[in-house]
């Protein structure tokens, strides 16, 4: 089955290779005028050589696919299942060690392909529509498209590293273009060097076309493929370490500040997105309707002792919400927004004991609390509780202990858990013991809904910082410190909150702070306090600033709301 596929894929790449020289030249003419025309012959040679290489790679891939198939068959995963929904992708494709396109390689690839924008709807795809998403080299097409557009719309002043190289390479002998390039400033030094090397390599290539041609005469197909494969494997490993060992990163140096655009804040972002129409609304609605038809099945399975976990791309919040409103109206249920940055297992347990079980009182530890809940649910068989957790894999809930407690909770026969996960590595949270406690049934619910709520707390680089996620790190670090250290930090935090209305508050001066700490019996000498502060500084909990008068000022670099949250939680714990 995979043999014909292999030949097909190589045929497709062959189609790609017939880049009409006119097309290549058309672009070059735009760019560099008549000068390049002289190089026509050499260029086409290099194109051909590249195409040969591409063919070989395709061959390899076909073989790899074949091998993966065997492996899959051996595992008995029955890839040939006609009903298989999306699962007929073998694991090798998902987790493959694909060569990351290092920037220059990508440039090379793109530069050869960019000139054929019209070809990207390859005619032979209609012949094999079932083979979607199977070819790893597919990304070429999209990129190719991007760059072809890029080259056409020069007037838009679109800039990117890749076309720069492309142009540079094609027009390397032209000093004018090079100096004109606006990138030279933005690229890091090493890159430039490499660039230079690359260019010289290309030039030497061009000078010796017969040699390359001779080298590329195909030896017997099979052995070649094998050899290349071995080579490729070796290369892969090397490339991986190469990419991850060196500290220098070859990307352009441009920053958002140079961009004219201002940073959007959360509100404007929200408004803008609300105005933007959601693409494929009808299809997404269809998709969601499919999932909604499963609701009663979920109920049945929950009652039979399974718990349900939803996965797949897209926000599953609306889906769960709909499930809740349509089926859970008559029963006690608890909704947990896992994506909420300050959620903890304790707050989940608290809301069960306080609101569901109407228990007043506190517990020494979450384990005690869990024991209490278990006992109550076992005693009273009429008690039933549905727990809906949005994003069970969120920052605050993904810890080992939290998961253990939630798993134990979910294993109670009268607690029905239905949760959603999004992170690609979410299943790694669970070991066999937890999995058996959870007793999951997995449901794929790809919704393609935007993650509106879930990402609104995320600290995206492009959005103005609101500092909400700092809370979890704050609590984590502080929990590992001594009681005194926590007290010291509390003092500082309280002081900072008192002064929050003062915009020019420079921070607490060291001397004042020392005084206060002494009064609270937290430190007994200047030195102990300094030692504590070093600890804080190492964990980036505080920042010190020297004022104009030489006095040291201490500041906690988190915003006030986070700090308030933090203090509240501390109060709760103590």
């Amino acid at each position, binding site marked *: 089955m995979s043999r014909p596929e292999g030949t097909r894929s190589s045929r497709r790449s062959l189609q790609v290779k017939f880049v009409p020289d006119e097309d290549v030249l058309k672009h070059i003419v735009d760019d560099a005028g008549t000068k390049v025309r002289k190089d026509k012959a050499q260029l086409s040679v290099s194109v051909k050589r590249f195409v040969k290489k591409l063919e070989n790679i395709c061959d390899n891939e076909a073989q790899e696919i074949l091998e993966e198939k065997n492996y899959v068959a051996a595992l008995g995963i029955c890839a040939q*299942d006609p009903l298989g929904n999306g699962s007929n992708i073998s694991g090798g*494709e998902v987790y493959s060690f694909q060569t990351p396109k290092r920037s220059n390689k990508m440039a090379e690839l793109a530069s050869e392909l960019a000139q054929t924008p019209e070809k990207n709807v390859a005619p032979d795809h209609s012949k094999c529509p079932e083979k979607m998403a199977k070819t790893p080299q597919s990304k070429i097409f999209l990129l190719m498209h991007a760059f072809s557009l890029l080259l056409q719309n020069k007037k838009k002043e679109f800039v990117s590293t890749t076309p720069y190289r492309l142009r540079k390479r094609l027009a390397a002998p032209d000093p004018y273009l090079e100096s004109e390039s606006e990138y030279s400033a933005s690229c890091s030094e090493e890159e430039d060097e490499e660039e230079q090397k690359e260019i010289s390599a290309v030039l030497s290539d061009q000078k010796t076309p017969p040699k390359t041609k001779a080298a590329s005469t195909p030896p017997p197909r099979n052995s070649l493929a094998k050899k290349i494969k071995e080579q490729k494997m070796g290369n892969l490993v090397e490339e991986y370490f190469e990419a991850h060992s060196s500290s220098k990163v070859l990307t*352009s140096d441009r920053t958002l500040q140079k961009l004219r655009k201002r940073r959007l804040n959360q509100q404007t972002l929200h408004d803008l997105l609300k105005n933007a129409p959601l693409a494929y609304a009808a299809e997404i609605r269809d998709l969601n309707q499919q999932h909604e038809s499963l609701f009663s099945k979920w109920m049945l399975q929950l009652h039979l002792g399974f718990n349900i976990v939803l996965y797949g791309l897209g926000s599953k919040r609306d889906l769960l919400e709909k499930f809740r409103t349509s089926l859970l109206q008559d029963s006690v249920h608890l909704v947990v927004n896992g994506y909420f940055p300050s959620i903890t297992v304790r707050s989940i347990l608290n809301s069960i004991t306080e609101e569901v079980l109407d228990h007043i009182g506190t517990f020494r530890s979450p384990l005690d609390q869990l024991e209490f809940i278990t006992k109550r649910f076992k005693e009273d068989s009429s008690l039933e509780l549905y727990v809906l957790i949005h994003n069970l894999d969120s920052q605050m809930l993904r810890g080992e202990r939290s998961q253990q407690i939630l798993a134990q909770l979910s294993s109670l026969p009268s607690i029905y858990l239905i949760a959603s996960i999004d992170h690609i590595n979410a299943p790694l949270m669970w070991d066999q013991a937890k999995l058996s406690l959870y007793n999951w049934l997995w449901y794929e619910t790809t919704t393609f809904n*935007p993650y509106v709520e879930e990402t609104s707390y995320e600290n995206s680089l492009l959005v103005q910082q609101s500092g909400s996620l700092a809370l979890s790190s704050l609590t984590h670090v502080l929990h590992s410190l001594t009681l005194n250290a926590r007290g010291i930090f509390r003092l500082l935090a309280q002081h900072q909150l008192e002064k929050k209305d003062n915009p020019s508050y420079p921070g607490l001066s060291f001397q004042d702070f020392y005084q206060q700490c002494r009064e609270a019996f937290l430190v007994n000498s200047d030195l102990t306090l300094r030692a504590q502060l070093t600890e804080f500084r190492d964990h980036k909990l505080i920042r010190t600033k020297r004022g104009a008068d030489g006095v040291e000022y201490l500041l906690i670099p988190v915003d006030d709301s986070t700090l308030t949250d933090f203090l509240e939680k501390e109060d709760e714990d103590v």
Partner: protein
Amino acid sequence: GCFVFKPSTKKRRLSEKTAHDFRSTSHDSEDTELRFVTCQSLWNQVKSETEQIQEDLNKQLLDNLVSFLSRSHSDFQEKTTKWSCRMKFREIPTAALVLGVNVTDHDLTFRGLSDVLQDNITPYVALLEAKDCPGIKNLMQKLMGQLMNCDIEVDSLEDEDCVQVSQNRIRCSMPSLISWYESVTKKTDSETPSKKRNSSSRHWQSPPVVVIFKDMESFATKVLQDFIVISSQHIHELPLVLIFGIATSPMIIHRLLPHSVSSLLCIELFQSLSCKEHLSTIIDKLLLTSRFPFKLGGKVLQVLINIFLYHDFSVQNFIKGFQLCIMEHFYSQPLSVLCCHLADIKKRVCSLSNDQCENIRRLPSFRRYVEKQESGKQIELLTNDSFLKKETEKLLEDLHVYHENYVSILRCLHVFTSSLPKYPLGKQIRELHCACLENQVWETEEYESSLQLARMLNKADLVTMLQQCVEILMSSSGKEFDKTVEKLKEFLTQFQNLEEASQERDVSVSSQKELQKKTDLYHLQKTLLELKESRRSKKLTKFEMLRFEVVDYIDRLVRKYLVPADNRTLHEIVYFNAATVLRGHLNAAPRTALHTALNNPHWYLKNQALKCDGGGISNKAPDICIVYKLHLECGRLINLVDWLEAFSTVVMAAEEPNADAASSDEVDDIIHARFIRAVSELELLGFIKPSKQKTDHVARLTWGGC
């Protein structure tokens, strides 16, 4: 972030509700109630059966353990000199229980164990888990809590004045444990004899205290060592017995404990049954029997077995999968109402509605059946409901008989194949079963080669196999096997006759011996050649003939009875075949789903615009797909500016360029916002994370495709 919703009217419906769920889904037919009841009763039957099996399998182990425990402290009872001599060495009797890697199944074993112990030996059993005992203090606390609780349970019936000691108040230490033990044992001593008989007659005077470490490997070594050292100091006051649950190998004890500590233990090793054997028994009792009307199809069984073998070795999970199969089958197949015991079939078939009859006519296997009938009967079958019902009943009974025969013959075949070298058809009967369900087994190469090998079996083996087959067939409930048994017995007598005849052959052997006398090389060569010649042309011996006959007969049986279930009419009613559904629910691949959604959105969103090119994705794809595709081209770090611009180029190209230039600023902002959203979604999904290495860069967290 937590919100509790309570209904205003607190009406609670329990079991009724479950049935209701079942009903609302399959709106098409009216038998749902009955189906649900059948499903539940079947599952309960299966469940009790599996529990029974588990109990039986563990019986041996538990018996051994119990006898060990009763032995271990018999000395303590009698206070003999031997005890005092051991006391000098301060050894704690310890049972090391090797349970295998499927940790999740251990719970059940331990529960059974503690029940048995509490019934037979001692009320003082404590189960400790590593996660509850990070330190020696917690361990002691947990231990005392459990011991005193169980004590209270026993005593509270008798005297109420026994105060509920809260474990927090007592100082948890060994002395307090000992004083508690003394007080407890004294109390039972001082009680009136009649009461004693009631409460603790099953236990002895001073029952041992059993401490079970459920998962010894995960305990901190320090905690274990401390506990052992401390308790060995007090062993003469407190008859303590330890039980270690071990998942890996007994060697771990010596790795965890230094010699000085392990020398304080007097270890005896107990091995539980391996989980594979457990599974074989389960399959044997659940699937290869006609007791349960519900059957698993080949692929489904394969999936379940693969999950077991490649993922967890957990029998519990296998049973869970089986439960899911039952549920899915009864839920999705309206005709599963007929999946019941033979006795009920007649009644249920008679009460089928018109719709259900149509459902039967729609079954592919039934259609195939109809096509084979002559035209008159075809019309009857397709138009006359009552005729159809009669026919259905007959077919279902046939199916039942088929299954009975199938199992018996399968076992017979297994007797043959399981002793062949290299096991071409598998060592376990489950492999053979899968092969037979999958396709016609006699067409496979493996079957061919195993027949070849069977033709080379020696006589003794062959005879014992035949005897086994006869036993299997005699014990089976199938009625058709009388002739078969007769035939097999005939073979057996023939073999016996051969034995008598074989004595005659010895004469010919002696002629061969003559040849050894001659030392002449030439003659030797000549006679050897002759011998070779004669052997080649020699007719098969009687034994060989008979062997061929036997194998051929077995082959005939296989061809007759081991027809794959898919070929049987109405197999859809009792066989569950939706392997994909099962795998999706039990062994899901969330990352694959994400990969598909990002690379090929058309799979989910059936829109022509998304379809256009096979390799990549179109520029009209959802934002997140485009952003994802672009990020695949980057190395470890991604420049946000470049990324944004690449994105906007793609998106601008997708949106028709007819948009007015005037509003371009606005458009830019929207694209910017969309980009931000897509990037933060990728961050949520775990593909990227912010990086401080370079300004306005994000780090890629994946290497390669997804």
